[in-house]
């Protein structure tokens, strides 16, 4: 006879000293966990509810400007710093952590329309409607830390006066060139008082410019003649132009896939394009109910933030048609500029009501240092929520966003209009010779033509 029975001595299964951690034994047998699917579903539901409870994205407003914020620039050298320019010519550097002005850059007579910092973070370039481009040297981070309450004004290093008002400025990645736009696109060098290069295509004002993060000589501009143009600094003439039905207010390149860019359009949508293939948008991001004013990509390249004339800020996935998040407050007016922070965890918006607002990029994220157990718990909750997101109860909770009444109404109205148009198109199609009416895809519909 051979016999063995289970015998557990307490010493083997418990800790030796009271200071030790409790011993943990695992057995992953599904038999020990009956109804695990139901348990998991309940957890997913609870996770979705908790996410809603903890969704408090608004961190604070930065108050100081006395006119609407028109533009912002990240400080690449200083994570906590952000520059903002306002319609009255005031430029400020903010410390995001303390939400206070660190220093001011006085000088502009009219509205500041463009702000950018060089890649090393030492130089700030601004331009405005007073036809000037100003170059400033940014105080180093160490001094910012020591006395950020001093509020002392800083003198411009150089002031270059042009013939026309400037609308936007952007600095090249890694180099020492920057581009200003207005009546024409001008390329400047830090050390020259005159533009080193000038491009002109059409007569209308160029309203925004962005350098490509991957190829330093490539830049994209948008103009009020509804065009998006690509320029290569190594060529004497502009490279390509795309004309859409409505104006593009701003452009942002995807930093992780630098051949793609997204254009914030006047027709409430954003259009993602492949720079090599401009005849069709890669993706149309709809959700805003008014013109999209500004756009900025997260440094991860997986999502971007948009600010709109409808007084909301939205976050879109780079490849998704609808926004994943909407931010609004009662006091926030029309949003003119938005920026993702360089660590991808915050969003800063500047609006008509003279305030900069600081938001969390993930509305329900727990701030501060997380314990590994907390981290694990959050990951688990995210995973179960993701697993059961298709079920009606979970989906309802996860998708729900409270909208301000005007936006809700406007959204409904837009929906009605679009549906009516669709219906009309369908009827027209049904009552004409088959093949005579071709429905163009949404991705192509808004494009008028592409010019080489």
């Amino acid at each position, binding site marked *: 006879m051979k016999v063995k*029975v289970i015998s557990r001595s307490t010493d083997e*299964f418990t800790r030796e000293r009271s200071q030790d951690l*409790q011993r943990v*034994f695992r057995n992953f*047998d599904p038999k020990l*966990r009956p109804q695990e699917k*139901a348990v998991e579903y309940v*957890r997913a539901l609870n996770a979705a509810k908790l996410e809603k409870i903890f969704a408090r994205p608004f961190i604070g407003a930065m108050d100081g400007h006395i006119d609407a914020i028109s533009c912002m620039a990240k400080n690449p050298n200083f994570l906590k710093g952000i520059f903002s320019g306002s319609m009255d010519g005031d430029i400020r550097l903010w410390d995001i952590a303390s939400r206070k002005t660190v220093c001011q850059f006085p000088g502009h007579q009219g509205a500041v329309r463009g702000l950018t910092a060089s890649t090393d973070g030492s130089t700030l370039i601004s331009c405005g409607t007073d036809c000037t481009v100003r170059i400033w040297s940014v105080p180093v981070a160490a001094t910012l830390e020591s006395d950020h309450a001093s509020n002392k004004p800083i003198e411009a290093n150089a002031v270059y006066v042009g013939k026309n008002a400037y609308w936007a400025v952007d600095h090249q990645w890694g180099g020492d060139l920057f581009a200003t736009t207005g009546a024409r696109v001008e390329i400047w060098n830090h050390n020259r008082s005159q533009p080193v290069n000038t491009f002109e295509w059409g007569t209308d004002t160029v309203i925004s410019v962005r350098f490509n993060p991957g190829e330093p000589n490539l830049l994209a501009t948008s103009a009020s003649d509804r065009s998006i143009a690509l320029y290569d600094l190594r060529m004497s003439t502009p490279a390509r132009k795309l004309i859409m039905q409505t104006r593009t207010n701003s452009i942002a390149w995807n930093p992780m896939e630098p051949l793609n860019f997204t254009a914030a359009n006047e027709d409430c949508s954003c259009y993602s394009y492949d720079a090599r293939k401009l005849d069709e948008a890669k993706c149309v991001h709809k959700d805003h109910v008014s013109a999209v004013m500004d756009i900025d990509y997260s440094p991860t390249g997986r999502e971007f933030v948009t600010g709109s004339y409808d007084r909301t800020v939205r976050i879109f996935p780079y490849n998704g048609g609808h926004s994943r998040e909407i931010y609004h407050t009662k006091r926030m007016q029309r949003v003119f500029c938005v920026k993702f922070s360089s660590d991808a965890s915050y969003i800063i918006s500047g609006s008509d009501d003279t305030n900069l607002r600081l938001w969390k990029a993930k509305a329900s994220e727990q701030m501060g240092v997380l314990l590994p157990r907390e981290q694990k718990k959050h990951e688990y909750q995210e995973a179960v929520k993701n697993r059961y997101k298709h079920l009606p109860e979970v989906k309802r909770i996860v998708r729900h966003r409270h909208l301000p009444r005007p936006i809700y109404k406007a959204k409904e109205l837009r929906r009605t209009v679009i549906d009516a148009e669709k219906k009309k198109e369908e009827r027209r199609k049904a009552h004409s010779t088959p093949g005579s009416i071709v429905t163009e895809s949404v991705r192509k519909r808004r494009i008028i033509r592409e010019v080489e």
Partner: protein
Amino acid sequence: MGLEEETGGSAKDVPPTEQELSAEFDTTLQKYLRGEGADLEALKDKKLKGQLTVREKLYGNSAKAAAKFEKWLMPSEGGYLEAEGIEKTWRIKQDQITREVDILSSRNQYDIVLKDLGPYTLDFTPSGRYMATAGRKGHVAIVDMKSMELIREMQVKETVRDIVFLHNETFFAVAQKKYPYIYNRDGIELHCLKEHGAVSRLQFLKNHFLLATVNKFGQLRYQDVTTGEMIGNFRTGLGRTETMQVNPFNGVIAVGHSGGTVSMWKPTSAAPLVKMLCHHGPISALAFHPNGQLMATCGREKKIKIWDLRKFEVVQTIPGHHAKTLDFSQKGLLAAGTGSYAQVLGDFSGSQNYSRYMGHSIAKGYQIGKVSFRPYEDVLVMGHSMGWSSILIPGSGEPNFDTWVANPFETSKQRREKEIHTLLDKLPPETIMLDPSKIGTVRPYKKREKPTKEEMEAEKEAAVEAVKDIALKKKTKGRNKTSKRVMKRKVLIDKAKKPFIEKEMQEAGKLAGKRKLGEETELPASLKRFVRKKAAV
């Protein structure tokens, strides 16, 4: 003989080949894969297909990791009892086992004799650490089975019919003479559940925090112990009931009736999920296999039947047992208590064919009222008319416990934390259903299509054919003439056609209603001359 033994022994020592190992690994892997993956070939959406492929791969990897964990990292091995030579396992006595096992295990063989207060019933916590036991005459005790200490003992001075632990050892419910009561570990009465009345059986659904009671007339009640809300109150209406058992796999409660039926219930429906006639006499005992696929029932006609709950068919009938109580162990052994004899049956062929494994007789005249395997131990405890006895059944318990599921070495701090976690994961009563894997799935979208004209026609044909084949009754003389028979057949056919024709008429009527009186409508010849001539012609 000895030589053969040796060769046999050496054959066992040869390490298993790689193929055998991989086959063994595959079977464990199957367990963790939890069924087959989704069929992605049929998907047309490429994006979805890509996402699902990634997810399926993830599931595969995690199953593989769990299988590897089981293979290499489990601390304990299960118990076993192997007969050698002409020995038979069912002839092996408890004292023979005592000589072979360690002292710690042999302490699990004992008899507690309490002559005046029996018969005793008992219940274990899910970890097997604590036992609650209750004598019919009002003796209630909570025992720590590891240290063999009596935690609390009291006399309720009333008839006690059943006892059950709630979610942990700090609370237990007792079915007393008039009402069930809830006590805490210190023996303080917390609640008197007057709504339930005099109940005979108690069960606790620990994932749902539901206390289920049934009285002898078959009134089944569910009460949520966290909120005190009565979730369900159903009259089973199938006769007197003596037994009730929860299926641990899906939380469905089975009630055995005096008419020989077993009915299965969930708290959200007043009609039983299943009614099955299991025996010709009253059901005396019921038990569920932990994997939820087998049910054992015993009737007064001295038969134990094993049922497959996927097909609701009997798998095996074992005659000659008049068991008052049945219990399945974690490893699937089945214990049956008959009179003063406890029989343990085992399924060793793997084909759900239960054969005797071990047996144990207690003193003559003691009547076993309840057998219960202690979870995570190779121990069977029998409550009988003179107290309770504990014996060793090697190979009955799960050797490896999971600290986060049921921990026999739980500290009070861990217990408190666990209580919170189980409360957070408390399942709503709607999650009790026959197939719990249905939760989290989406009902397949079915578009109800109108039958086409051909289909309608075919249906009509089939109905007519069916009527044609009906054999007419032989009538008395005069009424059985061929002409009458033909007439009758014709009437039948017309009757069968009628609904189809009516439907057609209805649809035609609808169309006619829609059609406007225009040039398409066919006018009678006499009115045609009034129709306006077309200008173009």
